């Protein structure tokens, strides 16, 4: 089999398309109604305090990233899970609406250099842009 080509039946293609529809419907529904999210208590309100337990990989990635060191907290890019924030809630924020607030000059430079073929995220793993420093080893989550 040619590695670039795959043999797929019509039925498989239709099945794949229907599967995509199903997945997107679920995601759409859950996002439209608000992803199930615990109500933050008064004493543990910032996202990291809970997410270091419930989504430790993402939370730790953020903490060790430049955004984490600089305390650009989750809601600045993702909005608020209840959808009542000042920007729309999104798992994958729109670069034009969100990233451009700080990174507009860089986005314009990239656009001029490479065109508009790729999104920011394809080259910049925003949660994993480490500060190349061991400061994060002192973080609260490392002590858990």
């Amino acid at each position, binding site marked *: 089999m040619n590695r670039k080509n795959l043999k797929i039946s019509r039925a498989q293609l239709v099945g794949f398309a229907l599967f995509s529809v199903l997945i997107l419907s679920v995601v759409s529904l859950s996002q439209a109604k608000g992803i199930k999210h615990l109500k933050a*208590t008064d004493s543990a309100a910032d996202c990291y305090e809970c997410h270091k337990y419930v989504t430790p990989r993402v939370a730790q990635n953020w903490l060790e990233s430049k955004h984490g060191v600089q305390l650009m*907290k989750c809601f600045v890019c993702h909005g608020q899970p209840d959808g009542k924030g000042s920007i*729309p809630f999104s798992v994958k924020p729109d670069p034009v609406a969100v990233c451009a607030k*700080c990174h507009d*000059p860089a986005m314009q430079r990239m656009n001029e250099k490479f065109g508009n073929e790729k999104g920011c995220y394809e080259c910049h793993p925003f949660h994993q842009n480490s500060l190349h*420093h061991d400061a994060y080893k002192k973080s609260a989550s490392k002590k858990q």
Partner: protein
Amino acid sequence: MKLSRRQILKAAAASSAMMAIGGPFGIMNEAVAANEPDEWVKSVCRFCGTGCGVMVGIKDGKCVTVKGDPNNHNAGFLCLKGALMPPIVYSKDRVTRPYIRQNGKLVPASWEDAMNLVEKKFKEALAEGGPNAIGYYGSGQALTEETYLASKIFKAGLGSNNVEGNPRLCMASAVGGYVTTFGKDEPCGSYSDIDAATCMMIIGSNMSECHPVLFKRVAARKQADPNVKIIVIDPRKTNTARIADEHVSFKPGTDLAILNSMAWVIINEEFDNQRFHSKYVTFMTNEKEKVDFAAYMKFLEDYTPDKVEKMSGVPAAQIKKIAMMFAEASATTSFWCMGLNQRIRGVWANNLVSNLHLLTGHIGKTGATPFSLTGQPNACGGVRDTGGLCHLLPAGRLIKKEAHRNAVEKQWGIPLGTINPKPGLHTIALWNAFSEAKVKAMFVLCTNPAHSLPNVNIYTEGMKRTDNFMVLSEPFMDAETVKYCDVLLPPAFWCEKRGTYGCSERRYSLLMKATEPLGECKSDFEILMDFAQRMGVDPKIVPYKDVDDVWNEWRQVSAPTPYNFSGITRERMEKESGILWPCPTEDHPGTKIRYVRGEDPNIPDDYPKKYNFYGKPDGRAVIWFRPYKGAAEEPNEEFPIVLTTGRVIDHWHTGTMTMKVPELRRSFPVAYVEVNIDDAKAKGIQNGDDVLLETKRDKMVFKARVSDVCRPGLVFVPWYDANLMINKLTLNAIDKGSKQPEFKICAVRISKA
């Protein structure tokens, strides 16, 4: 059927796109597209003293978004507060019409009725008690033109030097420090020093949360060159300490001893710069006696690292280490903020940081400077520089000096002798006098003293009196001071008006008007002009059509002084994103380094020496012998813990703005008490428990956050929360020189509630 990988992906993408129509991504993208601004208008962030340039996105006449100004010092970056400003403008709590208090309640009123009452009350106060019976309490958040105008109305027009502002609570000690050391206020370096420094000492500042965009620049510098050393000196292990090579935790208040001890190490390791300090420094005792270097060495013998270890709890080896880091680096910059300023020894602490720079020659070179950070966006440019305090006149001139008064009187075109030669009441004295109804009429503008004053209960009690009068210009109905004002005026807010902000680095930037004021709101310039006319102030004193007229006068007033920024014209400000003074001509690029020949336009090119600290008659800066002395209220048996206060990154000042942003409010909705793990164990306190804090002044219950951020024996409470105002517990003792209160240290007892 054969399909390529690309075809499969295309098929999947097509089905995804179909589903996305009406789905969340579709909605979001439509929302994004719907909010795409018609226009971007240049401005400055409304929050901290970093003074980041912002571009305000306007659609259909409303502010819909912001982004960083790529041409200002922040190079397009914003912090989380700056990035989320628009909801504040359209908060349901905006005051959009005037109110008058009747039978204890604020009732809507017309501008005419409200201002008639203001006029009547101020005229009555003047008739009864003379100029000392009125006062103005302004803000480091008001525009430069507004503070300049208010100060001129009161000092030149009404004969009252009772002109103060909240900068007295945040940076008065920095002013005192710079003036006593260098003879002139304001930093001698700039933010760009961060990019060249090889060592940075951050003391008494949680830069990461209080000046996040500057901290980003420091972190970027550290990332670019891991050999750059970062020293953080703070009794709390804050987020700032994450990038520190050395975090120095000490017994609160003993930082003065540590700084003296660093000087001892530098001299004894022979890392002082004799060539520099022998030529450019005067050694002066605390009693203002000029002495020699040997006397300084003798003074420092009380501060050997071993002795200071016993006082401060900092290991002698760590003191030696940070002293050597400071001295050995090719360029060291220091940053400090409220941790040093909000102290009864605030001026001394400022002097002691500058001492280290003067001792080592880490000054006047790119990357080497002692840099005081400021808390508010226009405390420097708006209040310090325009002379918006009770002892000051514009451009650093002093009311008590006849020559300075006469110079300003000439510039203002008023008869010599018009300005009262006696300085007015400083902030704490002013509010004491108001609480005793000795000051009978007070104009409060763009600040929230019923929340921000220390030991605030005594002042709010005073505000409740019916025999004094307070008019308040305040954009938000839920600000604490609204509860006590007699007349409430609705000011235009931030992007609804035009004017200047001057941030920590002597940078003046223009905020352009981007939207029309809501409802019946008027700019504070209009409000003050109306007030002046009603009070019968000579129109020649306030001949302004608009804020640009005020700016142009202020520009000319600065011209014969070392502040000279006559080259910062409105036209330049519209084109450029901030210019650093001195800037004497329209083609001058602005000044990054002061006191150095070839950099500072105040020093002629043919001046024989490289440095000239021209604020001092002999051109020499001063190394002061400032001893370590304790806080006004040290912990004792009854109140054994130190209480300190500060900010969290999510909130700013009294929270009247940040609480309007859903994300920020939700991030930290309620203030808390941060307790050390060991102290918590000893008291049986768990994370989330209710903890009772008691000082001599009041008591209050907070939820506990147990961590190792505070050192043992220290608790921290953020001060933004109007429902849990920690300033009911803080102390109103003041620095003798700067008159700044000691918010940072008082004695408290804690127990599980």
